[in-house]
């Protein structure tokens, strides 16, 4: 899928992706010549179709993790299907120094909850290290602006 600014006859460039949390997706595209911005809005079924291909609109911010789609999308999976403990994958994911510094800027009374949300996000996707990029992805996908 591509977007063309008809007035300028220029291919519009991807700007931003937002996942409001209701199963829909918004992606904005900007004309490099005139600056016009348009938004593509997909319904839950269309959003799901993209997810089912294992691709990310706007590009990947973190590398694909083993069995990412299965972990993320299977609703009837075992809680103990994977042994992530030994490798540092999942709830025990490592926090990079930058991510730790960013977490420490979260108010202390909600820091524990926020940390758990990011850890669960990492576990579901088999992510071994939580970095600022992972946090950005989680915020966008889970609608956690401000965390």
């Amino acid at each position, binding site marked *: 899928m591509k977007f063309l600014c008809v007035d300028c006859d220029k291919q519009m460039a991807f700007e931003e992706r937002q996942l409001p949390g209701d199963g829909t997706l918004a992606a904005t595209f900007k004309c490099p010549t005139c600056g016009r911005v348009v938004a593509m809005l997909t319904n*839950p*079924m269309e959003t799901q179709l993209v997810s089912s291909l*294992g691709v990310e609109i706007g590009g990947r911010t973190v590398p694909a*993790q083993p069995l990412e789609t*299965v972990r993320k999308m299977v609703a009837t999976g075992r809680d*103990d299907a994977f042994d992530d403990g*030994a490798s540092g994958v999942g709830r025990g994911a490592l926090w990079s120094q930058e991510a730790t510094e960013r977490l420490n800027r979260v108010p202390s009374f909600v820091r524990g909850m926020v940390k758990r949300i990011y850890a669960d996000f990492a576990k579901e996707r088999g992510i071994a290290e939580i970095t600022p990029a992972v946090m950005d992805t989680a915020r966008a996908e889970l609608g956690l602006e401000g965390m």
Partner: protein
Amino acid sequence: MPPIRTYHELTDADRSGLPEQIGAQRKRVAERLAGVGRVIAVMSGKGGVGKSYVTAHLARALARSGRAAGVLDADLNGPTIPRLLGIEHAPRPTSQSGIEPATGQDGVRCISMAMLLEDGAPLAFKGPSAESFVWRGAMEASALRELLGDVAWGSLDTLLLDLPPGMQRYVELCDILGAPPPVLTVTIPTPESRDAVQRAMRAALERGSQLLGIVENMVGDEFPGSAGDDLSGEFGVPILARLPWRPTPDAWAGLAGRL
């Protein structure tokens, strides 16, 4: 309004890079399977002919003959291979390089959706239930791709893929692998099985798969017919085994030796 340029005429770099992401997925599968001597799809186009049973015992016979074997249970909705290989559930060890397969009888390596699903639970995906037929097939194809590309198969002589009835999984497999895999066909002697398997073999042949041969299963008085001979004659491929209801270890060894 002047004619609008077509999709293919817009060639600027795209940050989403969806074709590149798809390409990276396929590269991951190819790299993972680089250590596998051959990947064989076990299929029939017909349910209930014993594909999984044949697959599991063939893998064991291969392993007993000194050829490292693995089974990918590609029947995502009705997985049975772990039970056939005597594999009890245990969490699969995970690392950044992949998921460890389970090891079954005779050292056969195996991955199956049965290991990842709650006991007795159907394979269900998160997402909108309305019009789920639109995306469910793609989701299953992604799961199959991950089972191929994200499992640390290691060095194998043969990886058998136990396909469910029908042709959908085979078509997905061709796309994921980038080339049609060689096919081992399982049938029972009946005309009904012959007709269904014939369609599947024709489809596989049209897609470009090498037909390795036919296993005629459940041979005996219960299921009269000549499906094996009929299919062998039409497609010019050998019958690799005629298996009675209770095959002996020698029968499995013979099949493994002819594959």
